[in-house]
């Protein structure tokens, strides 16, 4: 896990499938230093909030969610307990919108799409209320004032996260079909990836695992939407079967990535943790 990080993504595929030059450039890899300031992702969050508020470009909400997830890890690097709930609150609202955007981009059947669009309208209204809530202003100010964690502190935390990925990976792949365990692994992998990126270390193996888990996770979320519809008397059996088949495929792919990269996680777990 030591070679340099891959170059930052300068191109992204927007939800409508077209490739376009992005206005959402995410911060590049951190430069090694004795402390780890939050600035790059805090500034990114502040830049993306108006885009998310306008609601014309789905990428804005995605970038808010990504920035918030990275800041949650940054807080944990500095052992901050407070402000985590505030970030979780903001992320929950962004995630509701983003999950529906992703599901809609996967071209569900018309009947499913119509319901998802109604849910999206509600989720957007709730996100907008959160973005206009004074809690957000307090959160941004508080984050801007926090001191940067030391690198040594952050390295110890990253080693703990690598151990968590190993533990959760074993649990997730011991029993195929254990969706909560797969989801827990996805979250642990994401935290490890962000911690390594804050440290300016290569996160390539964990990114590859996280991508595979992400594709499986998208199907899990879509299945939840479909189940909710079925409970409301609108089952979509054929679509459900398609999603289940895709989930099996992506879970198998995630397992393959996991087996390939387990030694990298073992190395990271030993990394400066003594």
């Amino acid at each position, binding site marked *: 896990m030591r070679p340099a990080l891959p170059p930052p993504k300068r191109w992204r595929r927007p939800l409508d499938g077209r490739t376009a030059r992005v206005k959402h450039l995410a911060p590049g890899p951190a430069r090694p230093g004795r402390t780890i300031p939050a600035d790059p992702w805090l500034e990114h969050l502040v830049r993306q909030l108006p885009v998310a508020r306008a609601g014309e470009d789905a990428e804005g909400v995605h970038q808010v969610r990504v920035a918030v997830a990275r800041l949650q890890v940054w807080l944990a690097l500095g052992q*901050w*307990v*407070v*402000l*985590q*709930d*505030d970030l979780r*609150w903001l992320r929950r609202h962004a995630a509701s919108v983003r999950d529906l955007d992703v599901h809609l981009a996967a071209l569900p059947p018309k009947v499913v799409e119509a319901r998802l669009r109604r849910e999206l309208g509600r989720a957007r209204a709730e996100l907008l209320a959160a973005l206009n809530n*004074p*809690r957000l*202003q*307090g*959160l941004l*100010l*508080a984050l801007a*004032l*926090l*001191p940067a964690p030391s690198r040594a502190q952050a390295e110890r935390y990253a080693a703990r996260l690598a151990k968590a990925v190993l533990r959760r990976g074993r649990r997730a792949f011991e029993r195929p079909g254990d969706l909560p365990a797969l989801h827990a692994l996805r979250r642990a992998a994401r935290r490890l990836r962000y911690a390594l990126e804050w440290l300016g270390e290569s996160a390539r193996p964990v990114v590859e695992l996280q991508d595979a888990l992400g594709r499986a996770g998208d199907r899990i979320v879509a299945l939840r939407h479909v189940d909710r519809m079925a409970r409301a008397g609108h089952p979509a059996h054929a679509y459900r079967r398609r999603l289940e088949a895709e989930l099996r495929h992506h879970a198998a792919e995630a397992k393959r990535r996991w087996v390939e990269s387990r030694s990298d996680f073992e190395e990271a777990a030993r990394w400066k943790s003594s």
Partner: protein
Amino acid sequence: MEVFLIRHAEAEPRRPGRDDAARPLTPRGRKRMVRATQGLKRLGLGFDRLYHSPWLRAVETGNVLAPLVRGESVVTARLAESPGLALLDELSGARVALVGHQPWLGELLALLTSSDPKLGPHFAFGKGGLAWLEGEPRPGEMTLRALWPSKALRAVAR
């Protein structure tokens, strides 16, 4: 509802050119707050929710108090200004802690107990001190159960 107003612990002094909101706790202030938190724990006090100001010294104080919080912590800029009904409307939970600053905490205490925030300066609210109120969180609807200086809470921890 039970409301605990807690003033932040001792912070570094104001300095020209430094934002007042960015003043951190001193090592002594942090140590004392840890002891006071142990005292609160020994008294069996915990909170459903913790509200704190976004200023650094209040965030740091809130972080020390975090082990006593069973539910969510919420940052609110309304604790870094003169208290009003908007702040009271935000509160939810049976037992909540509010970490903030003087003179606003004193004004809030006066508002809740007498409806008159101008009486705030009459309350001796030292750094790391705590006021324990009970009643409806509306102007004049709360009763002051205790006003403890940090020193008293630290003494309980021994």
